[in-house]
Every structure is written in C-alpha cells, then in structure tokens.
C-alpha cells in the first residue's frame, strides 16, 4: 500500500481526511516507471466540489486510457490543512501517487468560476511552483488552464503557461505527442510552448502583447512571435456520441455535491438567452445518441454502485429523445433502489407524469426560471417563457398534487426599471393566487409555498450583454430591498418567501469576468493579504479585496459599470467561438428594442456557430 503524503497525526487532526487519501473506487493507479507523462488534473476548490465536476472525470478517464500517461487528481486543501502545509512546509501532492506536484510534467487547472482564482495561486504556491509563468524553469510542470473561464483568460494570463480553449476531447493527444518529442530531442520549455502554440485552440499568453489606450481600453493585442496565431479557435467535439465518456467514474468515499451517475445528453443550447454565456460558448447544439446513453447508464450504475442517476445538459427539455431516455431510466432502474433525479424540465403532462413516479409529490417542488418578472424584461433577455406558460404549468402541477414552487430571477438586467423589479413579486403572487383559485379548499394539501430567489446579473464575455453596464453593489442592495418590500405588500405574502444573496461577491466576479491583464496584480495582492476560497461566504473578505484594488490603482467601475462602446476591443476578442461579434452586436440591439429572437429550431439567426459543421440549422440544411 502506498504511503500517504500526510502522517496520521495530521490526517486525524484535520476535517474530512478522506479528501486527501485517494484510494477511491475507479481511481487509477499506474507504475510511474512505465509512463512518460505525469499529469495532475486540478479543480481549484475543495474535494467535494471538484469531484462533482463532470469535465475532469471525462479528461481523467481519457488521459488514463493512454498507457504512456498517468493522470492524477488534486484539489484545494481546505483552510485547516492549508495552514498545516504552510507551517510544516509539506508540498502539495496528487491523490493517487501522493507525490508532490512539482515532479509532474503537467498541472492542468480547470476554471469553472471566477471566484476560484485565489485558489489557483494557493495550488501553485503549495506546490512550490512559481506563481508567474515567466519565473518557471525547466524543472517546473507546464501549467495549463481549461474550462469556461478561459474564454476570457486575460486576468489570469500571467499565471499560466498555456490555455486550452474549448472542449478537451480534441487536442490533448497532439499536445502529449509534441511534449514527448520535445523532450526526446532535448529541447526546452520555450521550444515546447512555441510548438504547442500552433496547435488549434492553444493560447500561450507570453507570446502576445497588449497595448492600451490612455483611457485603459485596449488599443491592440498582437502576437510577439511569428509562430503564434492572431486568433485562437475554440475546440469542439462534433460527434458527442463517439467522444470518450467515463463509464467507470471515480466514486468518492465521502458525500460530494454531485453524488450520482451523470449522463451528459447533449452539449450546446438552442435557446439564445442573452445573459447566458454557456448558451453561446457551447454552440452548436450536439446531441448524444440515446442508445449510447442507455448503454452508459447501465455500465455506470454497475461500475460505481451509485444509487442515483441524473441527466446533464443546458436545457434537457430540448433533447429530442428526452421521453425515450427518461422512460428507459424509470422502467429499467426505478424500483431497483436507484433514484432518478430529473433535471428541471419544462412542465408538461409528460414531465408531471414521470415526476409523480420518481418523486414524493408532497416533498418535491417545481422549478421555474423566468429570470425576469415582467414580460418586457423577459423579451429583453430573450427568455422565451411567458406568464401564461408559467401559470399553465404551475396549474397543471397544482392539480397533480404539488404545492411547492421555486422561482429563479435575476436583478440588475440591462434596462431594468423599478416596475420590472416589482413584477417579480407580482408574478410570484399570481402563481399563489392561481393555486387558491384552482384548488378547492378541501383538496388542498396545506398552503402553497412559493420560494423566489434572485441572483445579481453579471455581464459575461461572448454574450450580447458583454457591452452592458453592470449595477453597482449599492444598486443591487437597493433593488433587493425594494423587491423584499414589494413581496411584503402582496395579498398572499404568507405563502411567499424571498431569498437573495449579498452583492459583494458579484461585484468582484464582474471585474474578473470582463477584466484584462491589469487585474492580475489585484488578484496577487488580495491573495497575499489572505484571500482564499472566495466563493465560500465564510471566507470571503470583501474589505481586503477593496484594499487590493485601491493599492494597485485598479478601478472596479472601469470594468463593471461603464457601458462599452460597440467598437471597443475586448480582451477576449482574439478568441473565435464560432458565434460572431456581429451576431452578438445585433442581439445587443435587439435587446435594446425588446425584440425576441427565435430559437435555433424555429429559425436560424445566423450566429456563426454552423461554421463547425453542426447544430440544428446545419443538420436541416444538409
């Protein structure tokens, strides 16, 4: 048995030692002497969050299918262990071999949300890898970034040797071959980076220079070596059905956030909600064949022993074989001790039928995401959901015996008025009224319970709202209070519950979402002040972040509250996601005129993603 990197004393002192010992079912052990490449796959948050992420399970499995690569996992040590490792100078290690990361060839970090950025620095520092790419030597691992935040990698560009832009399934074999060849020929780290920057989808930040205007916006962004391409094309795997998928994912010992088999049914989305970054980034829509899914479901349940299975996609109701896959799962596994966890489906007769089979109606709730309270605002964001649809769906569910409804909204959407905000409470109340009108007293199962939650809108790159100003923290707080007061004025206020979050974190997320290379020094400064695990409210230190911005002379408003002009060069403009800037600009105009754009199945709006030779528009034309 391998020796844990941490001794018994440490493991018995810290919370949940199972986070650090590896040894889980389906984790992969190899003989280090028999592999050429050691790869550490990192999710920079605590184990329970990282292990719930599908993407790293896919890549872990794919890399380990190669005999010459051993891919291991690493997560952020929780604050208790973080302190001990710093005190005792214990270098960060990978779970499988328990060996220090600095011995590895690659450290791949997945970037799922902006608020994990300080944790990247923690991972590097605890691994004893220089924080800045330019300070690394031949002895250090190559540090790669991947995942959705790489669509604007600039705020963290200095910390990475290269970014992989797009879906991981396509280019890693090429990268590994280049790496092996480079080493065989005795070439340097820089030689490798010069080679790898020519692989499609690979962005090596040190090969590019940014020149700024006096007002802080970008004047030019250009390669500084001839090998580096001007534009980086997002990678997509066109046949999802044939793409590798882990039929034996790693099974954690401790309960993690996503403690179940996850079947990815499709990538991409036909909807075109204007606030949604994923909806644009993952175009075009690609479905996975339903027969393959059935086969995976069986294998994955058998190989993991999980007691629950769920479907993953951006909008499961749009999957064309949804009925077939859901019916299969219910018929095949329900009643055999396997729970079917349904994604939030559009409420219709079918959805209610399967829900009544697999959930306890008395305990479960219905979920709607109208995102905005007024129809005007829903048109601005292109959310194709009307009040009638919501009331009709809720009514059907009430008649089916449900009496709990969850509603999700956003505050701070572009062009929002006080009336739009109040409409959130009004809509919530209308749903409650509908219950009392529709269900006679004797048939009611107690009061109706409507829980409405708001999050604060943050404009993201590669969305039609990338030009939009974001609200200030004070705006957000005032809006939440106004809405809370409005909820209290409603007729059915006793059946309504309103939740909202603090706005501090949103402000910061806004800066890093649309930031540029000038933001790196703020990040470094805040980390040195002790900021870590920022997405955990108990550790978020807003005042320290404000100090860091002040000390580095970086303005939050420059990134958040200014409306960007239509010809401004954005830090992420060098990335080609297929969806064109002119389409996004057109959609920004449509938002301003409250014009609705049809979804991809209704009509092609020429977003540009059909360049990848796929998606519903491409399939119908060909």
């Amino acid at each position, binding site marked *: *048995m391998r020796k*844990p990197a941490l001794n*018994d*004393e440490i*493991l*018995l002192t810290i919370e949940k*030692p*199972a986070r650090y*010992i*590896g*040894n*889980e*079912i389906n984790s992969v052990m190899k003989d280090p002497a028999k592999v050429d490449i050691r790869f550490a796959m990192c999710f920079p948050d605590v184990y329970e969050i990282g292990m719930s992420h599908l993407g790293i399970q896919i890549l872990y499995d794919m890399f380990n299918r190669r005999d010459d690569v051993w891919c291991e996992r690493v997560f952020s040590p929780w604050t208790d262990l973080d302190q001990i490792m710093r005190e005792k100078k214990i270098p960060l290690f990978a779970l499988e071999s328990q060996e220090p990361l600095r011995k590895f060839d690659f450290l791949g970090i997945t970037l799922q949300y902006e608020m994990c950025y300080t944790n990247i620095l923690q991972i590097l520092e605890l691994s004893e890898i220089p924080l800045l790419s330019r300070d690394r030597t031949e002895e250090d691992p190559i540090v790669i970034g991947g995942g959705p935040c790489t669509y604007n990698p600039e705020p963290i560009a200095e910390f990475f040797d290269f970014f992989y832009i797009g879906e991981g399934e396509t280019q890693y074999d090429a990268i590994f071959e280049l790496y092996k060849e480079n080493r065989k020929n005795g070439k340097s780290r820089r030689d490798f980076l010069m080679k790898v920057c020519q692989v499609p989808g690979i962005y090596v930040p040190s090969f590019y220079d940014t020149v700024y205007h006096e007002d802080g916006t970008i004047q030019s962004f250009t390669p500084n070596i001839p090998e580096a391409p001007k534009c980086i094309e997002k990678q997509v795997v066109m046949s999802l059905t044939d793409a590798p998928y882990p039929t034996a994912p790693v*099974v954690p*010992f*401790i*309960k993690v956030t996503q403690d179940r088999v996850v079947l990815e049914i499709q990538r991409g989305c036909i909807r075109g909600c204007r606030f949604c970054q994923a909806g644009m980034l993952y175009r075009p829509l690609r479905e996975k064949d339903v027969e393959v899914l059935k086969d995976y479901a069986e294998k994955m*349940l*058998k*190989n*993991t*022993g*999980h*007691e629950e299975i769920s479907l993953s996609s951006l909008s499961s109701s749009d999957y064309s074989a949804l009925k077939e896959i859901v019916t299969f799962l219910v018929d095949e596994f329900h*009643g055999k*001790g396997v*729970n079917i966890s349904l994604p939030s489906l559009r409420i219709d007769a079918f959805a209610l039928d399967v829900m009544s089979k*697999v*959930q*306890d109606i008395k*305990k479960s709730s219905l979920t709607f995401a109208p995102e905005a309270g007024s129809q005007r605002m829903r048109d601005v964001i292109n959310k194709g959901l009307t009040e009638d649809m919501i009331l009709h769906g809720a009514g059907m569910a009430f008649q089916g015996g449900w009496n709990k409804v969850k509603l999700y909204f956003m505050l701070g959407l572009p062009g929002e008025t006080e009336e739009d905000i109040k409409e959130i409470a009004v809509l919530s109340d209308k749903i409650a009224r509908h219950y009392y009108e529709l269900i006679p007293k004797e048939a009611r199962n107690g009061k109706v319970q409507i829980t409405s939650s708001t999050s604060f809108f943050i404009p993201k790159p590669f969305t039609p709202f990338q030009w939009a100003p974001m609200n200030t923290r004070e705006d957000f707080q005032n809006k939440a209070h106004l809405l809370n007061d409005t909820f209290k004025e409603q007729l059915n206020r006793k059946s309504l519950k309103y939740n909202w979050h603090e706005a501090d974190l949103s402000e910061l997320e806004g800066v890093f979402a649309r930031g540029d290379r000038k933001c790196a020094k703020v990040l470094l400064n805040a980390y040195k002040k002790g900021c870590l695990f920022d997405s955990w409210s108990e550790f978020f230190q807003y005042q320290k972040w404000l100090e860091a911005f002040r000390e580095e002379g970086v303005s939050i408003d420059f990134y958040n509250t200014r409306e960007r002009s239509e010809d401004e060069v954005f830090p992420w403009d060098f990335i080609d996601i297929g969806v064109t800037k002119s389409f996004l600009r057109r959609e920004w105009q449509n938002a301003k005129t409250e014009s609705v754009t049809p979804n991809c199945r209704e009509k092609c709006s020429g977003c540009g993603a059909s360049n990848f030779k796929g998606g519903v528009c491409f399939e119908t034309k060909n």
Partner: protein
Amino acid sequence: MKLRIKFRKYGVMKFIGHLDMMRYFQKVMRRADIDIAYSGGFSPHQIMSFASPLGVGLMSNGEYLDIEVHSWTSSDQMLFYMNQVMAEGVEILAVRKLPDNAKNAMSSVAFADYTIQFREGYEPSFSLSEILTEFLLQPQILIEKQTKKSSRQVDLKPLIQKLLLTKDGGVFMRVSAGSVENIKPELVMDAVYHFAGEERGEFALEITREDLYDENGWSLIDVGEEF
C-alpha cells in the same frame, strides 16, 4: 434470508468514518450484484445494519454487518464477488447465513477485543508490565465517562475482562462493548496512564479492533453458518 458479513479495515481506510463506510457498503452491494432487499417508499434503502461503529483512525480485523437478501449463491462466491469490487484497505473475511431467530449484529455485541500499539516517539516512559499488574489489582477503577449531555462515574474494573502486555510491547484488552456498556479502548488506556501519573499523548495509540463477541463469548461470525 439474513447474512452476516465479516470484514477487515486497514491502511488509509481507517480514515473513513462510520457513515461513509455504510455508504461505501451500499455501493459495494450494487457493484457486486448482491440481491439485497430494499425497504419500500420513494427513497428505498437497503436492509443493512452494522454491529458497532468504529472510530476514525482505528483499524479492525473484525467488523460486521448484517444484510437481508432475496437470493444467494454460496459463501465463497459472494465473498469472492464482493472482494472483486473492494477498495484497498477493506477485505471481506467471511459471509455466513444467520439462523432465523438470530439477534442482529448490533444488539448481539457484548465484548470487543482490541490490540494497541504505541506510535513511534510515543512509547510510555513507565514500565507497562508493572503498571498493568498493579492497575488491575485495584479494588475499583473509577473514571468519569462523558456522555452527550453530562458525565457520570463508572467503575471500569468489572468491564475489563482482559488487559495484558503483548509480546511486541503493545497491549491487548477485552472489554465490554455494545448497547449496555460500551468501553472505548482509549478510555482504559487513559485510566492506565492516569494510574501511572502520566498524560497520554493525543496521537500515542494505534488501535486495532480484533473482534466482537456476543454475551456467550462467541465471535459474531460463529453465530452464522457457511452455505
């Protein structure tokens, strides 16, 4: 039919707590295709119960769980299939069927055997053999036992069946366990250290539970039969 499963837990698995071990075994049943019985309702659970929770950090050569199955093959086959899907650090040692009138594992437990080693650098400075002999000669061994809400005085003497030095310089003990009076080995060792006028270091002991016994002194596995 009710089956009793005996397993051992060692290596890094000692850091997996009781609740997580329960979850672990539920998944084992599915991976090994054991035809286990489920309760009814919207979230059915497996009919499975453990003899006695083992603290985090302890190893064991004698852990038990009882399950109810609809169909079965043989002791050897079921043992083989379960061990095929085990994590390193858990090993199934025996699978037996229980007589219909058998008490479940949890309510059967009356005694437990433990062996204790001292971690490097934590060896006691007093002579264990002398202290143990004198310790057991006391007419009463009164200690404060912490319960969830308060603490109460307990006489350890009648609850310790055996307490002796092992050949390799460790300690072996057989103490009362289970629902009536559960004595943790640390508690006994604390009393020994106290008697010797010393404090036990928090990480001094490496404890292995060796086996569990019923009130007749039968190992819990001996209640069942091979099939």
